[in-house]
């Protein structure tokens, strides 16, 4: 029995694009134990939202993630629209969905490049990222921005699409579709690439459900779940699309699911552009004060199900905004899937969920209880402290 070595990875490591900490127990090259910890990039966005009105919140939430920025605003906007009871015009919904799908396209292309890079296949990485630029240009054409599109607003979208733009984008889609199909072929057939991903990072269907895996990660383990179909929003009820699943249960399956989702997304973008309805792009009048109540909105982000919970209290500021980014749901499952693999498989196995640690970051603060000389403050003590503080400073008694 070889000696067990502790291999720390992170918070800084070449394979991690964002800070996170992984601890692996290794015997030789084999991993026998894995733990993970996040909290290096917590930005307190949920708290920031409580101090801003709903429109300002949009711009804060857009910056949760640099890749799925539209996902977070759409999820939030949908929740607020539920509270406001708005009925959106068709064209607005279509344009919103158009950006959704383009975002999925560029996110999956980006992921394919990163995955290729993690296993040293830099040629695929460079070529995929070159052609991802086409999507970025389309997004720039639509919204004027490459990353944070700022196209969502309560009750619709902020920019319309002219007829020339529509034709131009349709023309740009042709080479994109051809090239993505080519990369899909490379990603699923190139022997050295497939040799690295097949049978690695296994996650059974049962275990994936137990660990609440979502999105392409879950679908690659045979969990047939897609919010676009199961709980449709936007223009998805009108669109004709397939939900890609795979029974491979490994990284190869995740590549399969994502590359075919890319192809599917290309087709959906085409559908949307060809059937773009006429009319308004947004509701004319939107109240600044949102009625009291709570709403939950689910959204199929490129990485999986994104959940936003918004509670209004009748003012123009939300009382609570809660974000559950898809990485949060997948991270534990991904850490577990590494056990039994080799050290060489760590980067690709972790990257196979398309992690976005900044989006998902939570933090725990250990409060020293100085008064009682304890290392941690208990919940009861903290509550008592709050009551005392408000009584002393604000004159409020509970």
């Amino acid at each position, binding site marked *: 029995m070889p000696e067990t070595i502790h291999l720390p990875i992170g918070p800084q490591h070449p394979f991690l694009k964002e800070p996170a900490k992984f601890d692996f127990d290794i015997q030789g090259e084999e991993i026998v134990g894995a733990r993970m910890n996040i909290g290096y990039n917590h930005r307190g966005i949920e708290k920031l939202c409580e101090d801003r009105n709903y429109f300002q919140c949009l711009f804060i939430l857009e910056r949760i993630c640099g890749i799925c920025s539209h996902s977070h605003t759409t999820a939030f906007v949908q929740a607020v629209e539920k509270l406001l009871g708005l009925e959106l015009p068709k064209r607005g919904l279509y344009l919103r969905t158009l950006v959704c799908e383009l975002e999925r396209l560029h996110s999956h292309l980006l992921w394919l490049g990163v995955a*290729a890079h993690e296993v040293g296949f830099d040629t695929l990485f460079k070529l995929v990222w070159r052609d991802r630029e086409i999507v970025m240009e389309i997004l720039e054409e639509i919204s004027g921005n490459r990353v944070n599109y700022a196209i969502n607003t309560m009750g619709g979208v902020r920019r319309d699409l002219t007829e020339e733009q529509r034709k131009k984008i349709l023309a740009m889609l042709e080479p994109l579709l051809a090239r993505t199909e080519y990369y899909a072929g490379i990603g699923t057939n190139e022997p050295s690439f497939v040799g690295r991903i097949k049978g690695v990072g296994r996650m059974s269907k049962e275990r994936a459900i137990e660990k609440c895996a979502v999105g392409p990660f879950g679908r690659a383990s045979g969990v047939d779940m897609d919010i676009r179909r199961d709980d449709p929003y936007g223009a998805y009820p009108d669109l004709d699309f397939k939900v890609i699943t795979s029974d491979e249960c490994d990284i190869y399956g995740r590549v399969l699911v994502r590359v075919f989702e890319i192809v599917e997304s290309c087709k959906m973008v085409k559908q949307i552009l060809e059937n773009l309805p006429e009319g308004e792009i947004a509701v004319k009048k939107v109240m600044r004060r949102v009625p009291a109540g709570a709403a939950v909105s689910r959204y199929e982000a490129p990485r999986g199900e994104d959940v936003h919970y918004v509670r209004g209290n009748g003012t123009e500021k939300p009382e609570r905004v809660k974000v559950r980014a898809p990485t949060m749901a997948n991270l534990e499952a991904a850490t577990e899937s590494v056990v039994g693999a080799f050290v060489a498989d760590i980067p690709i196995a972790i990257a196979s969920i398309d992690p976005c640690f900044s989006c998902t970051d939570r933090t725990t603060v250990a409060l020293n209880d100085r008064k009682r000389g304890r290392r941690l403050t208990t919940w009861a003590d903290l509550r008592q402290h709050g009551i005392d503080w408000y009584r002393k400073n604000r004159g409020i008694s509970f």
Partner: protein
Amino acid sequence: MNSLKVALYILVFPGFLFQSGFSTFLEWVDRKVYARMQNRRGPMYTGWAGMLQPIADIVKLLSKEDIVPAAADRRAFAFMPILSLAAVFTAGLYLPVWHLRSFNSFEGDLIVVLYLLTIPSFSLFLAGWFSVSPYSLLGATRVLTQLFAYEVPFFLAILTPAVLAGSWQISKIAIFPWTVAGHWWVIPIEAIAFVVAILTLQAKLERVPFDIPEAETEVVGGPLTEYSGKKLAIFRLQKDILMYVGAALVACVFLGGFGALPQGGDQASIGVLGLIFGGYLGGVTGLLLGVTNLVVKTALVVFLLSTLRAACARIRIDQIVRFSWRYLAPWSVVQFLIVLLFKAKGAV
């Protein structure tokens, strides 16, 4: 006078200065080819089309801060880069790049070169071992594991032409395809060994798909994780020279070599093909032909290495061991048998 000549050999022409310069040229070729295959431009600004970029990189590294980890064995840590550089540089001296016989050539120098080319791997292993960091240790063990995978097929592949030529001297193996008119067809006979040699050379150089010991995304820099500044610069130069020596060795034993005959050499027995494609001609013309052959043939080998690098993903350590013992080693044995068959028939 003679000792001055030897000093010049060692320091200037086939020696240090030439090897450093030419190997950085080969690195430039490699980077440029690799970049073009990825639809990038590669080095652009230092020198003509970025030709001086590799040198600039090394100079920059030399000027960087040199950090030695507190837990590391200081002396061994500093000695390893020098040892590996000295080994590849000495190996390079035995290559017949100018005269038909390099100044220190002898019967059996092929064995010495192969032996010297093994030292960088061991010094890399020790460098990782003495750095005392998890990534270095992982990288170091991977270096050794990989060595056991590729070394035997590499030896078998390189020794095949030696058996064919009936000599252990690199220059004799190099000139063998040209010596008697009509013998150039021994080059295609060794095709399998050539492919094996290219693959194992790639593994020796630790480049994709065999860059397992220093896989950036897995073990940061492998054995070199803790190296910085001058020591890292020396390792980089060593890697460049290793690529040059490896490519030139393959070109010598498989592609007919390169080099001008010394005055009074047995020029007559070399056919026209040999004079042109081997560059075995006296005087200035011979020198030019020899240099052209050197550049073209090593660049060709490097081109193949870069193509391989661009076309593959990195494989795993267990995969390379399986690959080389299941495919490379048996195929080199098959090649050996083919060569022995030719020998037995008396065809060559």
